[in-house]
């Protein structure tokens, strides 16, 4: 005999008791981007970094805009002069205003970093999306190519390119950094494309008759952007550091142009007489890297969180 037969029937059709208004479930509903913003804001460090980056940007844009060529003015009488109101960081070894040079240097470095990252992103997206979307033999060939570029010792190649094609030429530096750095972006995009290619919403778009280009541009690419944005944020910092290293070694920007790297190089030469000259460019450099790093971390967490309550002790 089935035990269940003896169970009393549940009351069918009777609705739950009328609800009090105070007792309605009030958990708010949020959209995806609102959630992203909430999660990002929770990262104090990421938020602080965002402000620091903005401050640096303003510093790099406004000060050179207002003062123009003044950073190149070198006067004998101001060599090694101490700080004053118009020169908050004093003067350097050939009489130039350190503060103004710093601003211009930050600008140059950030421009180089931004331009290099643009190349990285463009080339990376091109290679990665074609490899990931088309797949097959094309993917194979492209990935072999990526392997070759990855196997090159990056610093050596950059040094070679810059040294042979024109030391001190900003364009050459940007191109050198760009064409050696796109491999990571390509891999990221390719991975995303490979997985998104089979996603249901892509199949649906295909069923509706969308052309390949439209699918890639309108459907897949926006979803694949998340890791790319993070990589780009970190890539800017990376490029700035690479440029600084280049200039430090004597291959990058040289006087009268100024970048964070060559400020450091100059400061090193005059270390004995003015030891503190190494500090401003170094600090700005570290600030850029740190804030880009935290910003990137915060972005990554905000765009793709994994919050689980785990049991352990």
């Amino acid at each position: 005999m089935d035990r269940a037969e003896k169970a009393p029937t549940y009351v069918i059709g009777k609705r739950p008791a009328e609800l009090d208004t105070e007792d309605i479930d009030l958990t708010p509903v949020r959209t995806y981007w609102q959630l992203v913003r909430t999660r990002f804001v929770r990262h104090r460090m990421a938020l602080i970094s965002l402000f620091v980056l903005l401050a640096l940007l303003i510093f790099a844009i406004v000060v050179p805009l207002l003062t123009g060529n003044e950073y190149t003015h070198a006067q004998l009488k101001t060599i090694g002069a101490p700080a004053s109101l118009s020169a908050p960081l004093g003067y350097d070894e050939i009489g130039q205003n350190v503060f103004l040079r710093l601003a211009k240097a930050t600008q140059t470095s950030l421009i180089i970093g931004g331009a290099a990252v643009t190349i990285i992103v463009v080339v990376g997206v091109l290679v990665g999306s074609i490899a990931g979307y088309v797949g097959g033999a094309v993917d194979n060939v492209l990935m072999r190519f990526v392997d070759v570029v990855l196997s090159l010792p990056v610093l050596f190649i950059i040094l070679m390119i810059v040294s042979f094609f024109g030391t001190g030429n900003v364009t050459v530096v940007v191109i050198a950094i760009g064409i050696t750095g796109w491999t990571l972006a390509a891999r990221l995009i390719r991975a995303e494309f490979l997985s998104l290619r089979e996603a249901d919403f892509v199949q649906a778009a295909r069923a509706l008759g969308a052309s390949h280009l439209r699918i890639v541009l309108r459907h897949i690419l926006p979803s694949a952007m998340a890791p790319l944005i993070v990589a780009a944020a970190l890539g800017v910092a990376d490029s700035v550091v690479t440029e600084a290293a280049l200039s430090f070694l004597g291959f990058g920007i040289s006087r009268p142009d100024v970048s964070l790297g060559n400020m450091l190089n100059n400061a090193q030469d005059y270390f004995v007489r003015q030891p503190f000259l190494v500090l401003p460019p170094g600090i700005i450099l570290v600030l850029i890297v740190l804030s880009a790093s935290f910003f990137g971390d915060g972005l990554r967490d905000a765009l793709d969180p994994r919050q689980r309550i785990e049991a352990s002790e």
Partner: protein
Amino acid sequence: MTAVRTYPTDLVPEAAQTLLEVRDLKTHFYTNDGVVKAVDGVTFSIRERQTLGLVGESGCGKSITAMSILRLIGRPGKIVGGEIRLRDKDIMRMTEAQLRDVRGDQISMIFQEPMTSLNPVFSCGDQIAEAVSLHEPVSHKEAWNRAVEMIGAVGIPDPARRAKQYPHQLSGGMRQRVMIAMALSTNPELLIADEPTTALDVTIQAQILELMKSLRERNKMAIMLITHDLGVIAEMADDVVVMYSGKVMERADVTTTFESPHNPYTRGLLASIPRMGERRKRLEVIQGTVPSPLNLPTGCLFKRRCPYAMPVCDTAPPLQELRPGHVSRCWLTAEGAAPTIGENPSKELAEETAKAMTVDA
């Protein structure tokens, strides 16, 4: 569901001693969004060689209850109150060393996901032998032999070869058997099985349950079986605890639970099981959804979904003892009528009555 019990009830004599007593257990999680009271005042006990079934929907707190017993709760969770007595010792007051003695030796636990519960870089035999040599003074060789023996005992053919294999070389069902072997290798008095068959195929499920039944007889051990599957409860359990949103809604022996449940929630659960041979136009459901733990209703947690809800349900209902061994958290009387204080009494009267009527055992 079958009414034929394969477990002879006389193996659990009424005089069997209490093995585990959980009293007013409270485990809270302090998350960014607020405090989640995953387990909020749960009480039950398990006798020697008894099988207790812990039933409820996902998220009702049954797994957390099990893990709290072995104090396996980590940040942001914390056991904030209650007693857990293993015979005469309070687990909550034990030192780390004493606790480790209990774990895996007197109380063993197996988990839901056999695919990921075994360490992928150690062989199956190693992991079982580790459990054995941890709790018993045996040599490495003896521990290994015991491991192979246990793998055989859980029905895996060619145990000597399998013991040397790694978890990824075994299927899901076999991995769960290895987990059971590991848990039973130290002859525990209580086995806590947290949804042991949920992640497995139905046919494998049946095999694992049969295995557990035979081992239960062989080892004479008690089992605390956690599941959301009422069919498994009907097959295995002696007594049933029904949980909802961190609280015990009903507690009774298995026959009473299935034949004459009292609590509307339990009745709703039973009613929603489709039965063979029945012709219906619609499936029976419990209206509404489980409340968000951050936004619990005042009073009875089930009131928003209960067809019997009355205004008095705005006050937390008492945990009444309807008969010896049968408690239910509800305002309805044992016959299912409105309480003696009426459907809409004053708040003070309701609270006082609830306090007076509640038993805490």
